[in-house]
């Protein structure tokens, strides 16, 4: 009986091709017939192959290490050759610094990204705040406030009121489009011309004029003067049949300082009266086209008439200075009359006949207002 070692001798001879032909055939027959014997050969091959590979690998490793050693020796030789030179100054790096350098080497990409994100975040925030602040600033002219009323702001309160009303009587309140802005305007001539401030109708798509008795008329701008903040409108509604005789006249000269003046306007849904004095004969930043008046005015008063004691129209309310106590400005009536004169002689002539007689002179102020109130209108602007 052969031992396994004997078989190994046989296998080695077989793999080396040293077996004689009959012995080889005998072995191959046995391998084919006996699977466990074939397994022994496979194991032998694996063992032998691994051992040889292992040997090969160790030899290769030694070879490569020898190459490396040769290279290192070469480099060392070069270095020793160079030490013929004077001693070079060496940089001494402390342990801490080495750690820091290694940290920087490993993480500089991450640090760079983090830093740029931080910088962008900071500047983004700062710019955003600046931009937001700029957006919050109301008007480009510092301290000067235009007095047209933003209806949208009031609409919310109105809705709340409507809701309250609905709750009380159970009926749904009539939804009226209140327009985007509103101001005040007053009659210029009996045939349907009106005056208001330019900034009231600025950017308007359509205009609606509403009287104290809630009659609505559609109007269109005829002429505007941006510098004097004036706009002349004409009522184009077929239901309109004229204002009748106007009770006030237009003053063509400059009014006197200290004159007691008053205005009527629609800073809210109802007609509001306010009075004061003529404080200066120039307007904001010395603008000679305007008066300064000490009438308390509010958004919505714009375009309202300013009248003196005798019922002469001396100006049109334009704006106020927000950082000065009670300083409102009104366009001088002399510019209005001049404008009307030029319109009459223009190529497309407008038939604007300014009233000459003044029916208000000598009457008490309540009487004046009673007559006047029918000629003061709300100007509603739709964009």
């Amino acid at each position, binding site marked *: 009986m052969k031992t396994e*070692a004997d078989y190994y001798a046989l296998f080695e001879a077989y793999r080396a091709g040293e077996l004689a032909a009959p012995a080889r055939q005998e072995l191959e027959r046995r391998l084919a017939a006996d699977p466990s014997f074939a397994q022994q050969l496979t194991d032998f091959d694996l063992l032998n192959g691994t*051992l040889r590979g292992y040997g090969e*690998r160790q030899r290769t490793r030694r070879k490569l290490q020898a*190459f490396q050693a040769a290279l290192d020796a070469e480099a060392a030789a070069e270095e020793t050759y160079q030490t013929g030179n004077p001693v070079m100054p060496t940089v001494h790096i402390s342990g801490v610094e080495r750690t820091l350098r*290694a940290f920087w080497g490993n*993480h500089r990409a991450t640090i760079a990204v983090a830093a740029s994100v931080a910088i962008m975040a900071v500047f983004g925030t700062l710019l955003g705040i600046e931009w937001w602040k700029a957006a919050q600033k109301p008007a480009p002219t510092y301290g000067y406030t235009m007095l047209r009323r933003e209806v949208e702001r009031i609409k919310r309160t109105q809705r709340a009121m409507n809701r309250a009303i609905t709750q009380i009587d159970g009926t749904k309140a009539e939804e009226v489009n209140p327009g985007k802005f509103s101001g005040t305007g007053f009659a210029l001539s009996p045939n349907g011309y009106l005056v208001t401030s330019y900034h009231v109708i600025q950017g308007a798509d359509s205009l609606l004029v509403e009287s104290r008795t809630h009659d609505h008329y559609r109007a269109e701008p005829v002429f505007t003067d941006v510098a004097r903040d004036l706009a002349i409108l004409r009522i184009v509604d077929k239901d309109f049949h004229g204002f009748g005789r106007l009770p006030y006249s237009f003053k063509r000269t400059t009014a006197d300082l200290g004159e007691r003046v008053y205005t009527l306007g629609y800073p809210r849904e109802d007609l509001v009266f306010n009075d004061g004095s003529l404080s200066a004969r120039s307007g904001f930043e010395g603008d000679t086209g305007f008066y300064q008046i000490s009438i308390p005015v509010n958004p919505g008063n714009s375009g309202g008439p300013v009248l003196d004691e005798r019922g002469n129209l001396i100006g049109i309310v334009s704006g106020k200075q927000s950082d000065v106590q009670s300083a409102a400005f009104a366009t001088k009536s002399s510019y209005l009359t001049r404008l009307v004169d030029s319109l009459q002689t223009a190529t497309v002539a407008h038939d604007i006949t300014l009233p000459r007689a003044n029916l208000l002179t000598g009457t008490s102020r309540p009487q004046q207002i009673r007559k006047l109130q029918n000629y003061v209108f709300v100007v509603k602007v739709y964009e």
Partner: protein
Amino acid sequence: MGKGLPSYTDAEFVAAIRQDDDRALAQLYRLHLPMVLHLVQQNSGTEDEAKDVYQEGVMVFYEKVRDGSLELSCQIKTYLYAVCRRLWLKRLAEKNRFGGSLSDHEPYLETGAEQDLLDAQERDRQFGLMGEALERIGEPCRSLLEGFYLLDKSMQELTTEFGYTNADNAKNQKYKCLVRLKKLFFTHYQEEESF
């Protein structure tokens, strides 16, 4: 370079190494060492680690060439770079210091190198087991087998060295040792396999 050393093209390198030309292997080793040194040192490694990785990489290449199973679809340089890059990534992962990305300075291509590396690592495992088995087999088997397989000595040399009466005796001893080695090796091999 150029100190009278022959210069090879990639194909010539492969052919020369297949014929066991050590000069070519030395030249190849010298040629691509700086690349790997740079790669490893740029990615938080030391010079010694770089050399280590490089030797592993050249080994993979060398064994594939000797094996005749190398399918080189790119330059040797790119192949070595890919292998060493992979090896270094593995080392970094073991050291838990891998920051998530490696700064490459060579074009890194998906080559067959990755698969070759896996094969080589499987062989590594086998060789490790074989080394262990050889450690445990005891004398004189260990010296005999190492002499024959690892140090490439002939049976005649071994016969005189170990004082056998003739080469046949030595051979018989070798076969007995092989049988013992087989048992040691395969018990481990199968243990590991059954994992």
